């Protein structure tokens, strides 16, 4: 989910669709799972609601647009801390992958499409 949000701000439904697309349809989040995860990420300050941060102008524009559609839709984005965590996790996975390759557990990079 952090990876999905690293591309830009998204609202709930967008996150759901992106996760599905990027996992090539293997991960389909339910509404409940999605929001439970979101709440955990929010509580641990890995993500934040778009609108209160630096991108206030864009958010304000979006808020106005949202009001036009007569509904409130919250957008979420990666917090700086979340970006760091995502980065660290990716690094860690890369290290794991490197080790796995060295031991011959998976094929080397480039073999898989």
């Amino acid at each position, binding site marked *: 989910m952090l990876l999905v949000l690293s591309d830009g701000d998204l609202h*709930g*439904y*967008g996150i*759901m669709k992106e996760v599905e697309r990027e996992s090539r349809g293997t991960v389909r989040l*339910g*509404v*409940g*799972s*999605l*929001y*439970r995860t*979101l*709440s955990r990420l929010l509580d641990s300050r890995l993500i934040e609601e778009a609108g209160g941060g630096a991108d206030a102008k864009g958010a304000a524009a979006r808020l106005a647009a949202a009001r036009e*559609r007569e*509904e*409130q*839709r*919250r957008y979420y984005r990666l917090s700086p801390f979340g970006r760091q965590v995502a980065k660290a996790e990716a690094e860690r996975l890369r290290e794991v992958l490197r080790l796995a390759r060295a031991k011959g557990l998976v094929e080397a990079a480039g073999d898989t499409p």
Partner: protein
Amino acid sequence: MSDPRQRATLDGRGGRLFGWLLRAYPAAFRARFGAEMRAVFAERLHEELEQAGRWGVLRLWLRSACDLAATGCAQRAAAATALAARLSARAASSPCRHRQVHRQGDGTMSKLFQDLGYALRALRKAPGLTLVSLLTLGVAIGANTAVFSIVNGVLLRPLPYGEPERLFTLWERGADGKQENVGYATFVDWQSRIHSLQSLAAIAYWAPSVSGSGTPERLEGLRVTRDFFRTLGVRPAIGRDFLPEEDQRGRHHVAIVSYELWQRRFGGDPQLVGKTIVLDGLTYTLVGVLPRGHQTLISTGPNKPAEIWAPLAYNSSLPWACRDCHHLRVVARLGRGVPLVRASAELDALSRALFAEYPKEYEAPGVIFIPLEEYLLADYRRPLAVLLGAVGFVLAIACANISSVQLARSQRRQGEIAVRTALGATRSRLAQQLLTESVLLHLLGGCLGLLLAAGSLSILVRHIPPNIPRLAAATVDARVLAATFAVCLLTGVAAGLAPARHLLGSELRAAASAAGAGTAVRRRRLSGVLVSADVALALVLVIGTGLMVRSMLHLLAVDVGFETRGLLAAEISVSGPRFDGDAKIVAFYDRVLERVRSLPGVEVAAVTSQLPLGGDFDGRGVRLFDRPNQSEAERSSAQRYAVSPDYLRVMRIPLLRGRGFGPGDLTKTAPAVMINKALSERVWPGQEPLGKRLQIGGPDQPWRTVVGVVGDTRHVGLDLPPPLQLYLPQRQFVDSDMILVVRTAGEPQALAAAVRRAIWEVDPDRPITRLATMDRVVEVSLGRRLLLQRLLILFAAIAVLLAMIGIYGVLSCAVGERTREIGVRMALGARRSTICALILGAGARQTAAGLAAGVVLALALTRFLGSLLYGVTAQDPITFGGLALLLAGVAALAAYLPARRAMGLDPVAAVRAE
């Protein structure tokens, strides 16, 4: 981003459902994300509808329901843990004595939510199994809930009267010791001389015809003494109760109506009180309307709830108010705090005194008390108990199935359990988790069952014959809900125990042994026991049903003594000042018969004072001319039918000797009578009955000459032998209410409307009741049995189906597990037939054990059917043997499919499997 025009909204029923699902979450979470989740779900729904249509939508709903419930529980668990942590932190900082308690309490809650979360996830992992399990449980629990709703509504709910436990019916004791109706003079003595009763009231039948505006109809009513409603503790919702002076002749033309009649006949007119109604040609003033939903249980018959009440207004000068005019029923309310024995003793003393004073008028001293509830409902206890037992069996079978399914799954879950144990889960914690899963499954099944029950209850109530009181009032109320909940919990724990014990037992051993081959055998043995239980329970149910069906077949094969097919019956009632003489009544029926005979499709028509199997009774004492010294007790009592000349031809009752009635049997001609074979054999065995003389009823009646002997007809019911019967010419014994019987060329129902028109052409004010085919009349007379039989067949079918699923499931699971073994056997040269025998043999052993147990259980239980059986004994060997064979066949069929799969295995692939 999506186009605003395509934005879907979630409203109406879907919105409510989603809102309800959201309740799985803590309120705080809902407040924070609820609206958003709703919006996202709406969008998903919209998308799914476009991509995959309705099935997609359904799939999404199901998946989301599971998802929301599981994550909701997890969220609550997290919240509870957080709360516990905060509380314990606070408790640690302040010297609180209850701190230990607090921590424990919150810990339990959080664990419970955690378990629920796990359980939902586990159920979701095997959606097919979960779905089948839920359907099984839903049907079984639904059937139980529906039947219990009926039992609850009919038997368990208190009578709709104030303090019903103080209400009794009172009867004189007859010569045979049985209860006898009460004469008015006796009632007056009771009323004035007994002090342990708070009040009592006498009741007489009354079926007035209402004419004037609207369709003429015959109402079901009661004539009651002034304290009737006060005794019952019922007060009119509109208007007032009867006044004491209205129970006197001359002032008694007042009436109280039921809420239903008020709605039906008077359109709920709020100004009804004070208006008048014409009953039997006399004007009555309406003084009150009973409360809505008041069940008029005291009535002329169980399927004829009373709708209108008027004062009895007897006084001792009336000829029918004598001491031995036994035709009143008495209901009494015991004084507050008075024990029944005291009232009983007081009445017995009075009764003995009266018996000494009037030895001729009483048959025996003594008064019989029957609690009102017993009097009204006793007949329905046994059939309803049988039904409840039957659905209980269905539920037990369903539980056994669920148990074996969970057992089979435990194979696949051994890994999971092992990991949990390794991570430090204790045995009790794991057991708790497994039981939670089972209970949750049963609760979900229970919810489904409740929906099914609520949906099917009204259909059930509508399709069973309406001769059970209060049936319409059967609803899913708080007690039914509580019972269903309790059943779910209980069965959940019961069905969860076996798998849980097994899993935890095996977990200890599996830690040591490598593959746990021993546990697999043990588990297979356990599921074998469950299969046997399935078969045994199903067999009991099938045998019980078989006995009932055979009874019904015997009953339907009974020769009723007349031809029921192609016969239409309609009851017509004449009353009021316009029919004040016998001649007018006879003329009316003559005109009706003439009109009806001229209808196309009518072969022949007649009238009779009572219809066989129609629920009417008119027993009269018979005095014989050649035996003048016969005492009252020795005299026979026979059913009396006043009939028009063509009656025998219409009913196709055979004339055995002598002649039938003809147009020559007129009012003034010699009094004639026809008797049935049974009466002839009873009073003149071996003698020529023709020409003998007899008297019907009191000594004021004329002596009648027997002119013919006719065949017997069943009268009271198909299961009771024909009574003694005698037939009089209608003109010599005129009744006001007659039943028109019409023999038709084609389908009788098709003529119903024409017959009704023909009667109304003669007199548009005559009410017509019970217009029905004779086949229908017979069916109604079978009512209680038919209901029982239909439902039993349904439940037995469900039981057999469940047992089949059980056998199939367990055996195919066994084949799956033994794939490798079977492969090895085949590789070593075992023939396919041997493999087939191996699998079928396992099934056969379990089935045989089940059948044996089932036969024993059935022998013990079927005797409770007792009086419900006809023509078969409760241990009927043909039923037992035949149905055991049938069930064995069904079991073989269920076992054959897995066996065939085992035979078809490719040995090479089988050995490689796993």
